């Protein structure tokens, strides 16, 4: 009902294919960005930034990464956690071997290492499909996790056998490490995530995105149209892993401030996968919504009772949140198998045709 599109007409393909062709959407996104970049850092407290926003954004990026692979290209992967790990460890090595180069450069660069590894483990997709491939990606998960544990070189032979994030600065401001303020880290994470989301949307709306989706929907037809399957799939693995890698690096350097091999265990993979599914396969918006629901929900489950003055035993709360999240996942799948993104789509459609029902 708030969509008043009369008089919004397109006189060029460029404007017709803009990210937000409808004026009302443009306004909306601008408002959101203002809130994210200005309001939250100004008024948000440490907890909000450190325990909610930063992890939410990082998971969003990982979810986008997995979505590019599973949602857009139809290749189910259970190795997300490991690819995030690759990013984290790569970033750590690079940052410690070349301390003079700015850390942010390395955070992004680590994505390329992850991409390379991703491509390698994507090779089986030449021969196998579907759940067989999914299981193959578990190979990556377990092997890489094993490497994190067994190769002390990765952590510079720390006795703790864990990553310890050093303090690094940008223009004299500490951006990573113990002394970096949540505000600074939040803004960095936000910037990276927003930019990479924009890039992702460019990719999926363009030739490459269409090739991915073609392969997903009907690989035979795609092949007979001259789309080479293996390179297309491998590219998907590369880009996806890049995103996961960067997410992993940020997770360690801008959120935890340290990590050991177990941080990137299989549960991490499933966690992200559930975000993709709940958010909606093949939707960037969905990646945000999914991450929000799956990550923020447990937090609420922990906070709300406490606020109500009946604090649960942490363990109990933990178990409860497991039960509820599990139930919710099933519920959502039943209500809307195409995820939150689809729900939003439907709602938006309703608003556009209001007061008509269709």
């Amino acid at each position, binding site marked *: 009902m708030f969509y008043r599109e009369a008089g919004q007409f397109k006189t*060029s*393909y*460029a404007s017709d*294919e803009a990210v937000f062709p409808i004026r009302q959407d443009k306004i909306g996104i601008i408002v959101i960005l203002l809130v994210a970049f200005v309001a939250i850092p100004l008024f948000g407290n440490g907890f909000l930034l450190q325990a909610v926003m930063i992890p939410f954004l990082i998971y969003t990026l990982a979810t986008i990464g997995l979505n590019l692979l599973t949602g857009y290209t139809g290749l189910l992967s259970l190795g997300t956690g490991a690819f995030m790990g690759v990013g984290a460890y790569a970033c750590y090595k690079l940052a410690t071997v070349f301390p003079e180069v700015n850390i942010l450069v390395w955070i992004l660069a680590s994505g390329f290492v992850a991409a390379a590894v991703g491509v390698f483990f994507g090779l089986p997709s030449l021969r196998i499909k579907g759940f067989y491939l999914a299981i193959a990606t578990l190979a990556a998960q377990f092997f890489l996790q094993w490497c994190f544990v067994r190769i002390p070189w990765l952590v510079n032979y720390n006795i703790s056998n864990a990553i310890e994030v050093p303090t690094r600065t940008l223009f004299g401001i500490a951006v990573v490490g113990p002394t970096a303020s949540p505000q600074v880290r939040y803004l960095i994470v936000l910037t990276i995530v927003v930019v990479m989301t924009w*890039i992702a949307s*460019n*990719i999926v*709306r*363009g*030739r*490459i995105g*269409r*090739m991915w*989706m*073609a392969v*997903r*929907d*009907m690989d*035979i*037809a*795609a*092949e*007979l*149209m*001259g*789309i*080479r399957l293996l390179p297309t799939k491998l*590219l998907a693995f590369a880009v996806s892993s890049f995103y996961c890698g960067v997410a992993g690096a940020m997770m360690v350097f801008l959120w935890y401030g340290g990590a050991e091999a177990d941080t990137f265990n299989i549960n991490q993979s499933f966690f992200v996968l559930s975000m993709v599914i709940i958010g909606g396969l*093949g939707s960037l918006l969905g990646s945000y919504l999914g991450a929000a629901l799956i990550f923020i929900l447990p937090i609420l489950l922990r906070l709300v009772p406490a606020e109500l003055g009946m604090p649960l035993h942490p363990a109990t709360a933990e178990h409860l949140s497991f039960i509820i999240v599990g139930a919710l996942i099933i519920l959502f799948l039943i209500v809307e198998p195409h995820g939150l993104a689809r729900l939003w789509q439907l709602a938006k459609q309703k608003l556009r045709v209001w007061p008509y029902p269709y």
Partner: protein
Amino acid sequence: MRAPSGAGIAAGDVLLAVEGVSLAFGGVKAITGVSFDIRKGEIRAIIGPNGAGKTSMLNVINGFYHPQAGRITFKGTTRKAMRPHAAAAGGIARTFQNVALFKSMTTLDNIMAARALKMHKSFFWQIFRYGPALREEVEHRKTVEEIIDFLEIEHIRRIPVGKLPYGLQKRVELGRALAMEPDLLLLDEPMAGMNLEEKEDMSRFVIDVNNQYGTTIALIEHDMGVVMDLSDRVVVLDHGCKIADGTPNEVKKDQAVIDAYLGIAH
């Protein structure tokens, strides 16, 4: 949409020739020693009873199946077997017996996807969707819109094809094939399961494609009426063997063909 590159082949010359092609799955023989040719600019029909190996033949021509024996000559180069990518790049496009569209993509994206081979701007530009990438995108969008206009499917431009009625899906699929600007267009039962009106539309489009863009067309069709109207020459397969080849009228009179359709065993 510009006229396809003739590759130095004049109208009337042989564009594609299959010689002694045989194909078998395990023990099952699908095609045995079939030879025929397709001349540039003609509409060539491949007919025959069910299980005659018609679709397999198309699959051989665009490299989806690799025959055990025989040669395929396309645009003067002879191969033992085509490769899908080579075939597509060489200008062979096709539609499928039971529509093989990208169901969750819109009509527009389906047809745009077929331009993949013709779009070359680097990944670098792609990620910014700016400069060359955007220009390329727009220029191809224009071509695609011309096809949409040509097939009169403007109104379903933004609808996911999975939601479309069968007849329209067939039309979109034709559009997708056209977007490859093929020299040789393979249509696998383009009118299967259509009502009379839809059939007439589709026939009109096939003819228009053929004379507007001079595209060579090979089609499989069961509706004899349609075949007789559309095609310049007909090749008849039965149980994987060629039993007749010639103009519609010659074929119609051919005894072997009549028997085959009456189901008399050989």
